[in-house]
């Protein structure tokens, strides 16, 4: 079998299982008594083991197998959920992740050493959870390859004996079948296949010797052994085998699993086996038409909490990008058609175009939602990170995550992880005090860090709040003065908000000494740049002694935006609606001057008036000479500006296009371009750059 085609699926699913294990381990740490959680972890580990073994990743299978053993003891109450146990389990997950990464990169898991972890796991399982002593402790737990509990004279591992055990309880028999082919048999592999086929009609083959692969490659003499689970009696089983031509003898012996010392293990793994038994049951039922018996175990099987399988399809993100691109072309044509229809004034054309517009709006919503991914995919790695970080920093943290279901465009999701990591590290390292200080200040020893996401209008907000000491205004200023970012004099007159904004200045770090956590040479400025490149913004609020809140505002999507089209002389520009507060018409007489800067009074605030004509050096053959000015009031955070334009063309959806690599990063106050209905290119204004 060509495994490559399954590799992607294996990787995706393994990631999901590892994530699930990680999350559940965290939950277990909070709630050590919960057997349910242990069961869930066990199931994930078990599935991982199965997948890894199927794909031939031996080391991964080995490690998960031993994890499973440890977890098994836990759910039987034979092993307490202690810190040491948790640590070992966590490091298992880490190693599994490393292995998975290696599989992604090199296609093999051979390079990661699992021996010491396996030793630790075995030590735990043997009830001596001291990792150091563990090395010499003989293993108490069997592994896949080791000869496990004996059933009759067949070597069965505990998994297999459990199936037998389970089957027995459900009224199935286990048989050991030795099939000998005739000496003159030529195509032995084909015969073996036919024997398998015949037996699979009456039951389930759970083991063969040699392995199926070897049989297929004819790596056997004339004889092979099978273990079959079936409802048939011994004679029928024998005949089934003999019915295949060129089979010389079939030797069938019943396997009595009750004498197996694997009983207890079997019992424990019991619930896992239900589906398999069910499968056997169904096969049997189909063959013998003994339907009624099948009902009971089937119901039992349904009791097992199966992992949620939503009806979904995995789609390559590149295909979605192509879809979006095609769709954006359609949006452009739609706008163009609307324009033509308006100009022509043909009623039926107009109606058709209107209908098409409605449909394409719906289509657009669907296309957009296909790309929407819950922030959960990013958030779910944080609990673990916060846990480890808190331990490193010797702080106590109650980490609360809310709004994981909030959805964001995939392109934004991919970019948002790193800034969030940085802000969380910042909150833990700089924000939260250590337990002693907190106690001294009359606070709960355990600090609270919240990560919240929510929708609001056309934006998604992500907030990171801590109840730490807040931002030390003087500390920040001292540092800023030291670094020459501000001078002493300016510093005194700065508002708190301005001071907090200094944190985002490049190369700024408030940490007194460089710690492991923050000393990575990147500061909050990187966060800010990243967020702004995504069309979002970051705000800080802080109350001394009470805590700090970082809010990130992000657009829902990056590819289609609502914009106001304006005209200045012969040029058209699009201003993103998200930046616009409102449009207004002002009297020339109301324009005042402050330090040579034209300003207007806008609802009681002094707002600078910016001439786009001057800023963009727009040529104008004849002066307009109007008594009034059309202005668009735009904002960046709390700051505002009024942009003077000749005319408002109207509001419309525009498809964001890049200016091309040649101009990337080089153009002042222009964030991109769009194509208008008439095929012309209009530039999209970046109001953030206009307001400094």
């Amino acid at each position, binding site marked *: 079998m060509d495994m490559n085609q399954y590799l992607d699926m294996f990787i995706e699913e393994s990631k999901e299982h590892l994530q699930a294990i990680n999350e559940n381990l965290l939950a277990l740490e909070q709630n050590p008594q919960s057997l349910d959680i242990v069961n869930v972890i066990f199931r994930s580990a078990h599935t991982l083991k199965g997948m890894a073994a199927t794909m031939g990743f031996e080391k991964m299978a080995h490690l998960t197998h031993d994890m499973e053993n440890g977890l098994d003891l836990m759910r039987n109450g034979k092993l307490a959920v202690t810190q040491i146990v948790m640590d070992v389990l966590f490091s298992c997950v880490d190693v599994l992740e490393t292995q998975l990464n290696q599989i992604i990169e090199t296609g093999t898991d051979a390079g990661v050493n699992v021996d010491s972890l396996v030793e630790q796991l075995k030590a735990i399982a043997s009830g001596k959870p001291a990792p150091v002593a563990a090395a010499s402790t003989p293993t108490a737990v069997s592994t896949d390859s080791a000869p496990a509990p004996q059933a009759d004279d067949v070597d069965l591992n505990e998994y297999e004996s459990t199936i037998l055990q389970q089957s027995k309880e459900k009224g199935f028999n286990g048989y050991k079948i030795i099939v000998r082919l005739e000496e003159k048999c030529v195509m032995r592999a084909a015969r073996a296949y036919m024997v398998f086929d015949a037996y699979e009609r009456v039951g389930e083959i759970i083991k063969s010797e040699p392995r199926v692969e070897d049989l297929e490659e004819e790596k056997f003499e004339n004889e092979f052994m099978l273990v079959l689970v079936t409802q048939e009696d011994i004679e029928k089983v024998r005949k089934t085998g003999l019915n295949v031509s060129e089979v010389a003898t079939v030797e069938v012996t019943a396997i009595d699993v009750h004498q197996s010392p694997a009983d207890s293990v079997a019992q424990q793994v019991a619930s896992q086996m239900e589906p398999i038994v069910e499968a056997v049951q169904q096969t049997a039922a189909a063959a013998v038409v003994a339907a009624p018996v099948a009902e009971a175990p089937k119901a039992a099987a349904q009791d097992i909490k199966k992992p949620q399988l939503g009806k979904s399809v995995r789609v390559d993100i590149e295909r979605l990008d192509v879809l979006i691109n095609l769709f954006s072309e359609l949006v452009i044509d739609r706008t163009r058609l609307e324009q033509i229809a308006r100009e022509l004034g043909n009623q039926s054309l107009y109606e058709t175009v209107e209908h098409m517009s409605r449909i394409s709006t719906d289509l657009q919503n669907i296309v957009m939602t296909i790309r929407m991914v819950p922030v959960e995919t990013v958030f779910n790695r944080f609990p673990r990170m916060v846990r480890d970080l808190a331990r490193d920093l010797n702080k106590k943290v109650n980490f609360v995550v809310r709004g994981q279901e909030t959805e964001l465009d995939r392109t934004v999701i991919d970019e948002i992880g790193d800034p969030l990591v940085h802000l969380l590290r910042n909150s833990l390292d700089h924000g939260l005090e250590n337990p002693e200080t907190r106690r001294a200040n009359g606070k709960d020893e355990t600090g609270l860090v919240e990560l919240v996401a929510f929708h609001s209008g056309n934006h998604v907000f992500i907030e990171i709040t801590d109840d730490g000491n807040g931002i030390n205004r003087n500390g920040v200023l001292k540092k800023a003065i030291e670094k020459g970012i501000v001078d002493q004099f300016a510093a005194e007159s700065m508002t708190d908000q301005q001071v907090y904004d200094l944190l985002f200045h490049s190369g700024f770090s408030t940490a007194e000494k460089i710690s492991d956590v923050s000393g990575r040479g990147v500061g909050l400025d990187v966060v800010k740049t990243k967020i702004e490149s995504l069309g979002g913004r970051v705000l800080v609020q802080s109350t001394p002694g009470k805590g700090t809140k970082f809010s990130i505002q992000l657009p829902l999507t990056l590819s289609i935006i609502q914009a106001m089209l304006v005209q200045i002389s012969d040029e058209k520009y699009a201003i993103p609606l998200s930046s616009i507060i409102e449009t207004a018409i002002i009297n020339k007489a109301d324009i005042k001057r402050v330090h040579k800067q034209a300003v207007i009074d806008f609802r009681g605030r002094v707002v600078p008036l910016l001439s786009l004509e001057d*800023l963009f050096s727009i040529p104008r053959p004849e002066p307009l000479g109007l008594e009034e000015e059309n202005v668009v009031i735009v904002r960046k955070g709390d700051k505002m500006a009024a942009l003077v334009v000749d005319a408002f063309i109207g509001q419309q959806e525009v498809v964001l296009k890049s*200016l*091309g690599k040649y*101009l990337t990063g*080089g153009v002042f106050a*222009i964030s991109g*371009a769009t*194509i208008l209905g008439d095929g012309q*290119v209009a530039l999209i204004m970046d109001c953030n750059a206009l307001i400094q």
Partner: protein
Amino acid sequence: MLEHKDIVEEVKVIVFRLEDEEYGVEVNQVRSIEHMQKITRVPRTPEFVKGVINLRGIVTPVIDLKSRFDLGEENYTDTTRIIIVAVDDMEVGLIVDAANDVIDIPVNKIEQPPAVVGGINKAYLRGVAKLSDRLLIMLNLDKVLSNEEIQAMSSMER
């Protein structure tokens, strides 16, 4: 057609005209040749950046090659063309006075450029091809399209 006495490596070039001189760019760097069309000016870019055009849904920057080489007045006529070139997955349109020809040039006919050719900085040139009756100036597009000037501009603004 061509006389092949020795087998010589050849390059296929698009020949275009700026003022009175003839220039060549390798055909594998050329995506298409377009008629002059409405260009959207991009503010605060160097003089030679004329703006951007809509090239079948892709916004493509356009530069005026004469202005890039300081070769005098821009003067768009019916023969003016925009040659879309691609260098390092960067697509740029070059405005030229006319695009005349596609010819094969034997590689051994391309010589190192003399110190001064029509006032163009030597760095922009790959060489000069001497053909029987014409002289072709081969451009080094990597240098022509190096966006250092633009980067310098943007760093000034910040």
